[in-house]
């Protein structure tokens, strides 16, 4: 090993020194990555394959027999009102949280960047939701959004408006959860945007100004936005994946209710698998979830990546 890594000349027996060197380097490489490969196989690939296999069975926790049922679970998913609802709700959640938290983060990042004082303070303030525990924060939200004793509806009452039941009205609950989701993701996106902004060379702004981009909007459109491209793409993908994964707030605040109005994919999966013990069916939901996440990643690497990197 020391030969390979230090590349010392060793007397060759048959193979040329270069070939020997290359081979031992390859062996070293494999040896060094062996722990990672093993843990990837054991902790990720095998469980995933097991989940895939389970999705085609009727396995129930504690049942003594398992039957291969082919696509029956997926056929049931197709007709299951609860699953459809949770799919639609998840799409809605992603559709609101992604633009909301990206645009919000971008605007705040630009404001912080343009400001002279208090950058660190604002960065810390907006980053706080990211480092706090979602479950604990959900309890705080539960109080803030409480229909009768909550401060939010209290303020609305002062204005003469009867506030809605934020978390128990089926028309309102997804909006409330999405609002919490934006609050949760905003700080993370903000920090990424701030990092992206500092990486833009100052000279480009000066050059743009010389070339006639006088207004702030023109400078944003011509310099900031294009150069933030890679950051924005990363933020977009990570926000979408993070919001597809919404679970904690639903579990703590609404448990999918009322009448499935706030049921989301991961909560349905948990509910079916661990409350109703239908692991096979739950695995089928997991596969759908996996497909969505993979599709999002594919979208990033294959389609969008080409359009935001320059040079």
């Amino acid at each position: 090993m020391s030969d390979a890594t230090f590349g010392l000349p060793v007397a060759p027996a048959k193979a040329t020194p270069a070939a020997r060197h290359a081979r031992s380097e390859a062996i070293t490489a494999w040896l060094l990555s062996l722990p990672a490969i093993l843990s990837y196989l054991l902790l990720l690939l095998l469980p995933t394959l097991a989940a895939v296999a389970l999705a085609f069975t009727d396995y129930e926790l504690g049942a003594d027999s398992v039957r291969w049922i082919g696509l029956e679970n997926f056929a049931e998913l197709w007709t299951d009102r609860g699953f459809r609802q949770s799919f639609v709700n998840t799409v809605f959640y992603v559709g609101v949280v992604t633009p909301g938290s990206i645009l919000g983060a971008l605007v705040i990042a630009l404001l912080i960047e343009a400001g002279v004082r208090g950058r660190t303070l604002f960065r810390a303030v907006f980053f706080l939701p990211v480092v706090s525990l979602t479950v604990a924060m959900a309890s705080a939200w539960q109080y803030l959004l409480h229909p009768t004793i909550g401060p939010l509806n209290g303020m609305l009452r002062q204005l003469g408006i009867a506030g809605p039941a934020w978390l128990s009205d089926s028309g309102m609950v997804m909006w409330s959860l999405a609002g919490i989701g934006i609050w949760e993701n905003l700080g993370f996106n903000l920090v990424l945007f701030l990092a992206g902004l500092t990486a833009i060379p100052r000279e480009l702004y000066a050059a743009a100004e010389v070339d006639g981009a006088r207004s702030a909007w023109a400078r944003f459109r011509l310099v900031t936005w294009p150069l933030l491209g890679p950051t924005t793409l990363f933020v977009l993908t990570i926000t979408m994946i993070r919001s597809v994964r919404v679970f904690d707030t639903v579990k703590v605040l609404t448990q999918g209710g009322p009448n499935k109005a706030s049921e989301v994919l991961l909560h349905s999966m948990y509910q079916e698998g661990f409350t109703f013990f239908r692991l096979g069916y739950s695995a089928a939901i997991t596969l759908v979830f996996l497909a969505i996440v993979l599709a999002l990643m594919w979208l990033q690497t294959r389609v969008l990546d080409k359009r935001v990197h320059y040079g």
Partner: protein
Amino acid sequence: MTTTFSRRAALLSAGAGLGLLAAPRLLRAQGSTEITVHYAQPYIYKESYDAILAGFARQEPGIKVNFVTTPNYEEGAQLLLRQATTNQLPDLSYQGFNRLRVFAERGIAQDLTPLLAQEGNPAQQGYTPNLLQLAHFGGMQSGLAYAASNPVCFFNADLVKRAGGDPENFPKDWNGVLELAAKIDKLGDGVEGMWFTWSGDDWMFSALLFGHGGRMLNADETDVGFAGAEGLGALTLIDRMVKQGGMPNLTAAAARQAFAAGKLGMIFQTTAQVRGAVASVGKSFDLRTTEMPVIDAQKGRLPTGGAAGMLTAKDPAKRAAAWKFLRYSTGPEGQAMMVQNTGYLPCNQLAIDEDRYLGAFYRENPLFMPAVRQLPISIPWYAFPGSNSVRVTQTMVDNLARIVEQRATPAQVQADMAAEVRRLLPRKS
């Protein structure tokens, strides 16, 4: 480890007779058994099990008990089902009443009838037929009830007085209750009249259904039992709570918070919440409890919530030891400790009847009394048959939400609920 040691002990004593110097130590090792006992919700039950274990250890010094806990019943059931497939079951597990049926039907819980029979007449030891029935599922005695609860009415006596009601003479029927709730609702300042715990599971709905004398499924469990007049009556009552009692659309947690904040006149929920309510209300208002309003004076019943211990040990020595622990925890001493540490209802008739066990406790804690007075009309929590046992309850709760949100009439909900539950029942050939 224990087994090899005792085998060696057996060989030694066979070879060398009883006069050996090492004999006392070996004999002690032979007599000791170690069992694993699982229970859920340690934040509610821990003190009770610790007290019981201390008492048990004095009585049975040769049995060592290790506790395993899960944060809630749900995860407790998962744990046992998982361990059943890998053969790592604990020796004894305390599970929620409504999940016992799953274990009985999947052959994980053992029938306790023969063990009970060995000890003579169960009723003389406090296991009356009613109490045994609480943990009788899947056609066998799948457990012994450990802690029981039934729904009661919690009310804010200050708000009742302000609305012109008399806390000493709280209305005994739903008409009176809804009228009073409407009056409290009109007090303004964000005060709501009442809240009924319809969400979470079907337990509180079954209180209304059983209150009308109805049942969840028919006697041979082939069809739903709430498609008739009793079911409609129960659903209409929820509709009236919204329309007449001004019941707001709240989650259970939000309702409990509003009650503790003094902004809710009355809340209908399990008596197991008494301890939590006392702690969160403190001295901010006069908290009272009373019996559930009567629906049908003759046929009306109430569901029983709580937990039962089920035996899962296979090894004969461990099984015998686990049975001893189960018997002690459900016997009069164990039950007295359980009640004093949790506020649940006792599941042993001797603990209920004999003043020396709990008399003083109930005189000092009158908030627990309504549930005790309701014991004679309490029946087991109904658990649905088949693999969709737990799923059915969610279907019912989802449908109740439609009434609470006033998006469907009780009749529409009854029809949909019946159709959806029928689809989830096991097909009988």
